[in-house]
């Protein structure tokens, strides 16, 4: 889960990583003259999209009057389709140097990767492409961790300002702690700056590994602050993995691979999927019922394809869910069901015993997709 800048900076504060003094507001009435920041201050739109500065989402205010004016202008602004609903107001820094640093997991090497560069403040992908020697890459053993000597060497190799070596070492080590102990998929600071007040993380890009939510209370809090598209809210409440798409064939399946593949096969038969909906592994009857409820609230759905290949998921439970959701109902669209794998015989028997004229059972994925495309046209 990608965090907003202000959320990432809250984590920085938890790990004693220096960032500018700031206030966070989501309503203009929250600003008053006795705030404790000294001017100039930077008013920053909180949106999860690059290029907000160029779009007018970042402004420097030299007085309270300007602060109010810019805040008014930026709140409610649309930046590349993202509505600005909150602002981070920070004390401006006098920047002497700008660096880049990030921590992530390198999936091919199966190790953590730290990247460090003296060329921060700009598009780092450009640096990586045009001047790869300016981007230091350090692989870190996940079981051994990052030691002090490696940090010192990386700082030297990247040619960062040696006058600030101790301070930089401390910040690098704390960012690594946040990455590991904070269960982050990504911690990226661009720029990590040397300012007149010392080393400071001026921006934050943090992504959390939501599989670790059970050991971090603040993940829940962060999640509640991130707006979900209206179309995905209902599914989210039901704990379903749902993404709205543009077509008319509603899709329900188990396992991300099979569902993606169902999208592909529907497309091959000339149709377009209305959504991606994965009921996951080991789904119960209630999960399937909820999935059908989600599609019922979608206007663009004209037919529904349920494609289940039981492994850990049991087809009899899926069938019970379908029966439960459709019993005695006048369905607004045809449902094509394909069940294979674990307990599929039992599942098909349940469907036959509770037959519904709008439900068609198909014996193959290909045929089911074809029928669903026909049903939607």
């Amino acid at each position, binding site marked *: 889960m990608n965090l907003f800048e202000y959320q990432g900076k809250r984590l920085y504060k938890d790990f004693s990583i220096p960032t500018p003094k700031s206030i966070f507001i989501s309503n203009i009435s929250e600003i008053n003259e006795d705030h404790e920041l000294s001017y100039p201050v930077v008013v920053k739109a909180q949106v999860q999209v690059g290029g907000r500065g160029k779009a007018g989402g970042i402004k420097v205010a030299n007085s309270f009057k300007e602060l109010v004016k810019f805040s008014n202008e930026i709140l409610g602004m649309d930046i590349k389709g993202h509505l600005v609903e909150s602002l981070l107001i920070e004390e401006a820094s006098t920047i002497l140097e700008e660096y880049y640093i990030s921590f992530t997991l390198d999936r091919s090497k199966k*190790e953590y990767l730290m990247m460090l560069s003296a060329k921060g403040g700009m598009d780092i992908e450009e640096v990586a492409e045009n001047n790869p020697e300016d981007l230091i890459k350090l692989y870190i053993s996940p079981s051994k961790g990052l030691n002090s000597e490696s940090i010192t060497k990386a700082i030297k190799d990247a040619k960062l300002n040696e006058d600030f070596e101790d301070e930089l070492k401390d910040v690098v080590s704390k960012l690594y702690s946040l990455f590991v102990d904070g269960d982050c998929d990504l911690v990226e600071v661009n720029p990590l700056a040397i300012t007149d007040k010392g080393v400071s993380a001026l921006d934050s890009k943090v992504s959390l590994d939501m599989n670790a939510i059970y050991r971090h209370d603040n993940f829940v809090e962060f999640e509640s602050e991130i707006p979900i598209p209206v179309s995905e809210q209902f599914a989210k409440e039901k704990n379903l993995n749902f993404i709205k798409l543009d077509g008319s064939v509603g899709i329900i399946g188990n396992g991300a691979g099979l569902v993606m593949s169902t*999208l592909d096969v529907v497309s091959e038969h000339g149709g377009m999927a209305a959504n991606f909906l994965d009921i996951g592994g080991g789904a119960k009857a209630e999960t399937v019922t909820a999935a059908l409820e989600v599609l019922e609230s979608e206007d663009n759905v004209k037919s529904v394809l349920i494609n289940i290949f039981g*492994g850990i998921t049991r087809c009899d439970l899926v069938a019970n869910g379908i029966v439960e959701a459709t019993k005695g109902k006048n369905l607004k669209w045809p449902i094509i069901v394909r069940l294979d794998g674990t307990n599929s015989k039992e599942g098909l028997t349940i469907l036959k015993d509770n037959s519904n004229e709008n439900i068609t059972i198909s014996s193959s994925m290909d045929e089911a997709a074809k029928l669903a495309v026909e049903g939607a046209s």
Partner: protein
Amino acid sequence: MSIFIDKETKVVVQGLTGEQGKFHALRNKEYGTKVVAGTRPGKGGETVEGIPIFNSVEEAIKETGANTAMTFVPPPFAKDAVLEAAYAGCELIVCITEGIPAKDEAEMYDLLKEKTSSRLLGPNCPGLISPGKSNVGIMPHEITLEGNVGVVSRSGTLTYQAVLELTNLKIGQSTCIGIGGDPVPGTSFIDVLDGFQNDDQTEAIVMIGEIGGSAEEEAAEFIKKNVSKPVVSYIAGLTAPPGKKMGHAGAIVSGNKGTASAKIEALTEAGATVVKNPTSIGQAIKDIL
């Protein structure tokens, strides 16, 4: 021969007393897999449908000669369970558990590599089956048939789809393996491709990938250099809209890296036959054999 498991594989199930663990362990046993033990701290001495439960994997190995662990332990405890099985000497650990934090997976992989010679399959995988010999995991064995095609996939349910397409055409499988779609899989496409290349029973290979990451591109490199047996491949997600995260931690498309077309291109260039629809996998293999 099959790869990684055979008739002599003896399985200890971690989490046999849980609902999922019990259901699938008993299915495996019914199929003929030697499910010799289960573990659950504090429940040593009990039995589940005749399978003895031990307090630790070490004890289970001592008493039953188990050499393979199958793990259904919930995410918060999965790392310790896998390490316990490895330190106790299991040659193969099949971790079915879904939802393990990436940090736990990375640490676990690192420690296994450093301190043990155990092979980990998964986490978040359906396990593996060598039809007619052994089934360790959650794959529905009804759809399999003993034969000479090796199947490897990142996606569980798509593995089943591919196997069914083969079986429907009376083409059997040597071993079917789901490596899982998590950030740090213990066993990679390359490990399995290498196994199939050196396996006498396997004459052709089906490899199923999906968008995101670079595992398929790396596998393509390996195929080009090291695999002489024919490979049929399918990549899921050709029509997935870019930038949408579709469930699997692995299935993330960013920029032009990890797209279905980049993967298809790499595999085609490596000499694999790439099909556009999973239901064509069976026919493509039939045409080759």
